[in-house]
């Protein structure tokens, strides 16, 4: 073998090794998901026989239907669909409001600088890192005073408050790289404060909007602590209902229903990633490359 051939073949060796390792780890990482999916499509009898990793003998969506429509959560046996809609009703307004507020904050903090703007931004950043547990009691008092305790609206308020910090961080960094001359040009052209925002900045913010929406959506959808603390019972979000469903089994533990419910709980975030994941990475990179 010539020198070059040695190099090529040893390169191939490493490549094979690297890909093998990656595939093994990917499979290992995906294993729980795989088990969840196949379990949710099995019949209860089949589960008792063990063989956790084998594919279902009889594929059935019975567990999914039960989880959605008739499984018992606490004392009511109407499935988790009501809670699923609770979550949607909580997530959609929270994400929209916090993203919009973050965008406006970022716009003001970069293009309408004022004295002390850095301090305001620093405080907002600080807000991102306050542990949830610390605010539980003051927050419940605030919600009580506002008459929002135990409601989805209250949860929306909590998540918007917590979301503003990160949303502002994202948009501020993105807009810092946005040419200020464009804002000046629009000012001379006669566009107003919000005119510039709606017509010039927001239409150029695609990537960072996607990043913020994904970030907020997953965080708010997956939140358990606030949901359990502020919206127990009928208005509980999906995550809390899932916990209750798993805990309120009577007699035989229906793993297939649990798994189906868990899958339903995870699907929306999965969907958001699949649809917008491409932009997520691109958006995360955009600021850093330009900056």
């Amino acid at each position, binding site marked *: 073998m010539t020198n070059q051939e040695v190099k090529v073949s040893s390169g191939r060796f490493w490549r094979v090794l690297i890909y093998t390792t990656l595939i093994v780890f990917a499979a290992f990482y995906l294993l729980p998901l795989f088990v969840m999916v196949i379990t949710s499509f099995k019949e209860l009898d089949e589960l008792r026989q063990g063989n956790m990793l084998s594919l279902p003998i009889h594929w059935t969506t019975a567990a999914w239907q039960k989880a959605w429509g008739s499984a018992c959560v606490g004392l009511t046996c109407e499935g988790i669909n009501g809670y699923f809609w609770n979550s949607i009703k909580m997530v959609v307004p929270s994400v929209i409001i916090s993203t919009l507020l973050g965008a406006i904050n970022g716009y003001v903090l970069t293009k309408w600088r004022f004295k002390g703007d850095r301090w305001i931004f620093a405080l907002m950043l600080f807000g991102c890192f306050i542990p949830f547990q610390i605010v539980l009691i003051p927050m419940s008092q605030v919600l009580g005073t506002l008459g929002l305790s135990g409601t989805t609206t209250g949860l929306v308020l909590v998540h918007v408050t917590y979301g503003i910090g990160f949303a502002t961080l994202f948009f501020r960094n993105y807009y810092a790289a946005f*040419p200020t*001359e*464009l804002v*000046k*040009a*629009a*000012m*001379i*052209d*006669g*566009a107003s404060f919000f*005119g510039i925002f709606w*017509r*010039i900045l927001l*239409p*150029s913010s695609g990537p960072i909007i996607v990043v913020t929406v994904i970030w907020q959506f997953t965080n708010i959808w997956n939140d358990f602590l606030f949901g359990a603390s502020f919206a127990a019972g009928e208005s509980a979000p999906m995550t809390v209902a899932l916990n209750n469903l798993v805990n309120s089994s009577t007699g035989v533990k229906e793993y297939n229903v649990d798994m189906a419910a868990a899958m339903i709980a995870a699907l929306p975030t999965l969907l958001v990633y699949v649809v917008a994941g491409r932009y997520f990475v691109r958006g995360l990179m955009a600021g850093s490359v330009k900056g």
Partner: protein
Amino acid sequence: MASLEIRDVCKSYGNVEVLKHINIAIDDGDFLVLVGPSGCGKSTLLSMIAGLDEITSGELLIDKQVVNDLHPSQRDIAMVFQSYALYPNMSVEKNIAFGLEMRGMPKPERDKRVKDVSQMLQIEPLLKRKPAQLSGGQRQRVAMGRALVREPKIFLFDEPLSNLDAKLRVDMRTEIKKLHQRLGATIVYVTHDQIEAMTLATRIAIMKAGVLQQLGTPQEVYDTPNNIFVASFMGSPSMNLIPATLAAHQNGIAARVSRSQGNDLLLPIPHPERYQSWVDKPIILGIRPEAITDTGSAEPNNPWVFQADCHVDVTEPTGADVYVLTSLGKKEMVSRMRSNCGAVAGQSTAFAFNMAKAVLFDPHTENRI
């Protein structure tokens, strides 16, 4: 179209004074070029005219109306930015029409104006494109179109050509000049390029470190610079500044300049009555390269042309001319001769000094005497 007056305008950021008592007034239809080295405050002044920067003290008048407190959109000005600042999310057409739309002009009229302007600038085929799909020169045109379509009182240009390559820059320069002649618009134009300033302006304002050095027509600024800074900033190659001493000579006054070889050179100065008090004192003699020629191309009937032999250090042919370098008063001196003048480095040749074009500076204050 309107006149513009800048009255005793100052600008400071905290304790830092970036503009000091600027006074400039131009008439309707003037093309004012603000020129100076970077950091001289010319762009800040332009921003203040646009209303994008606040005026610390002084007054700014457009069309004899004080506009200090008017929002940029109410000053009826249009600006072309160095980076063009085209809205990336809008097509060329929308970019140009945006200002009109914001002012509530009905769509049919907007479309007509956009059409007229794009015809004038020859950008009609580009109207549906986004700025990212345009070349630098095309973006430049669109940026100008966006300003033109508004038909403002005053156009502001902030180094609009500095992002273009050399050839395109010269073409666009001519085009801006043509545009000015056709529209008769009032224009304020910022540049650091003195050639751009000379070719475009009807009025040049030369600035340095926040202070206005001179305001005048290009010819005034070129022929009678107020001080050494203006003299050396305008013109390329720049004016020769030769240390000399004034001496009484025959019935008048002459500048005595030391030569590298041979005795001192005595160059008589026109209007000796102006310089009586400077006799026997050191001065700086300013004379442009093109005022020092070979004897053949000197003006034959000009009584102020004097010939002298000097040692040639270097010759730099440019094709059309040749720059002949010698040293006078221990400084390098550039003269501009015909390419066939026959000057050879290392030998002596005859130089013809047109002293009618000479200017004298005080070596201490650096101002013109």
